[in-house]
């Protein structure tokens, strides 16, 4: 690539000659590294297209928000009535929050998500520590066996997992939602990748000072791994919070419903209360939107990382 630099310099005039039309007025000489006029019009086209798509992508959510703020009576009349009625009201939200169901769903989702995240992070990072730092016979075999696990989507295992939980009488307990989601192979891989890249000096001097493996892991490796722990915790949280298929079949007690299972019953039970239906959808999505607004970068990086390594 370095050889292109002088060659490019010698023909720098050529692209300038091609500049015509409106953008020829651009003072190209001031910014030699910036893309030329074709670049500028390209940027304008990109920008327009992108904003267009972004607006298109926002319409469904905005439509749900608008409907949720419109009285049930207007929403039942259809799209044009929703567009015309701008007497906004929080009525649907107060109805839902007063009824109490949504609070129970929030609680169930919060309990199952938080406990699962804690177990995934703890057990996943422990396993990754062993695979990254400790030498023992069978290490490659364990690693290979875990890799195989990545290829099996948990949704496909819903029938045997249900049978298993049934056999040990855990159906209709939160454990039925928590336990099957603990073996997250992706988490082990992401942790291992991160540990492999950590410098080992601190650990070695700690070991020389007589610290055991557990202390090294707890007080040196984990504190250094805060960013990856945070990213994995958020990614896992989103996955567990949104899981539908598992709680749908292992929890039949309405008192234990998580947000997704609760929302799945809304369409049938609310009937023509369309604004209330949309409001419940917004309320179900809200915790994750808030999470996104707080941890924007972490979430995006976390998902990109979990995908690239998977």
């Amino acid at each position, binding site marked *: 690539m370095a050889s292109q630099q002088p060659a490019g310099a010698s023909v720098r005039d050529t692209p300038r000659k091609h500049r015509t039309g409106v953008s020829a007025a651009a003072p190209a000489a001031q910014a030699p590294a910036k893309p030329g006029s074709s670049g500028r019009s*390209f940027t304008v086209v990109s920008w327009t297209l992108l904003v267009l798509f972004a607006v298109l992508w926002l319409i469904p959510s905005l*439509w749900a928000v608008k409907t949720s703020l419109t009285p049930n009576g207007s929403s039942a009349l*259809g799209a044009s009535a929703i567009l015309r009625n701008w007497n906004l009201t929080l009525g649907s939200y107060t109805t839902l929050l007063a009824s109490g169901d949504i609070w129970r769903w929030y609680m169930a989702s919060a309990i199952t998500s938080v406990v699962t995240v804690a177990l995934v992070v703890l057990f996943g990072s422990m396993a990754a520590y062993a695979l990254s730092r*400790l030498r023992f016979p069978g290490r490659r075999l364990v690693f290979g066996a875990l890799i195989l696990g990545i290829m099996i989507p948990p949704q496909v295992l819903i029938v045997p997992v249900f049978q*298993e939980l049934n056999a040990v009488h855990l159906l209709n307990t939160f454990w039925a939602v928590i336990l099957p989601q603990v073996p997250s192979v992706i988490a082990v891989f992401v942790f291992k990748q991160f540990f492999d890249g950590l410098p080992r000096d601190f650990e070695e001097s700690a070991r020389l000072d007589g610290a055991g*493996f557990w202390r090294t892991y707890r007080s040196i490796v984990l504190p250094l791994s805060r960013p990856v722990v945070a990213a994995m915790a958020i990614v896992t949280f989103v996955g567990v919070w949104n899981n539908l298929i598992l709680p749908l079949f292992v929890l039949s007690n309405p008192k234990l419903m998580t947000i997704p299972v609760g929302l799945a019953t809304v369409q049938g039970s609310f009937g023509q209360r369309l604004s209330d239906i*949309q409001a419940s959808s917004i309320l179900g999505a809200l915790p994750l939107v808030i999470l996104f607004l707080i941890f924007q970068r972490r979430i995006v990086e976390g998902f990109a990382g979990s995908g690239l390594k998977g």
Partner: protein
Amino acid sequence: MSTATLSPAHPTTPAPTRASREERRRGETRPAWLFLAPFVIFYLLFLVWPVIYMFIASLFNTSLVRTGFGTFTGLRNYAEMLTLPLFWQSLGHTLVFTLITTIPLVILAFVFAVLANRVLRAQWLFRLAFFVPFILPSAAIALIWSFIYSPTTGLWNSFEAAIGIAKPSPVLATPSLALLGVAITTIWWTIGFNFVLYLAALQDIPRELYEAASVDGASQWQQIRSITIPLLNRTTTLVVLLQIIASLKIFDQVYLMTAGGPGNSSQVVLTLVADTAFTNYRMGAGSTASVLLLIVILIVTGIRELIERLQQRREG
């Protein structure tokens, strides 16, 4: 690696460093397994055992209303599934759904990412628009889109009426449109993941490459074609594979939006599994359908592995 053959009762071993390394290694085996144990136990209980159980149950007429596996029926469940028209329909719908979601989800995500990477401004807006839907619960998405698709007065049918379509069909209640409606919802819902994967890969491409190319007079389009696309080859392979698998295991959207209907026009493999196992209490037959879906998914993964190897060989 022949650690076991060397006995520790050799004080005169000329290589003390090796001996101490061995000792250290022996000292690491126990803690290693202790660190691994919690995860491995869960892995065995909720991944390995279910897979084995599923294969066994697929050979029995296991039922939800009885305990135990039931009676051994050999390959009868497989024979039943493989001759059941509904199974083939469901598999067909799953494959069609995979095709009509994967292509736009890969191409659009690529285009959005390339454009967003060029524009550089208002990144938060694009993240908000394209990425946020992906982290929302499928149940919330299904409520929003079922409402958009609601017959006659819904947003979509009203839009169709406004642009002059005389009698717009209700999307989710029309057999030929239901799966398409679910696919559009899915594209809207999940594009953020691929978008983010592409964006991360794009940020790894050094800017100098583009600068050098533009100095050489390459147009933007030429730059995309000869720098961006080839350098994103491996990302594209990954995105395509992850997308195909995500689409093959579709369950949520169909279960929530159409329940497989109208008729069986949008029935997919996992909704058929759920119907067979949990509605008809036939766990054995449900396991069989799951096994068949797992085989399809493993074949796709195998093909991807092959492509990956070929790519590596060509590059190296």
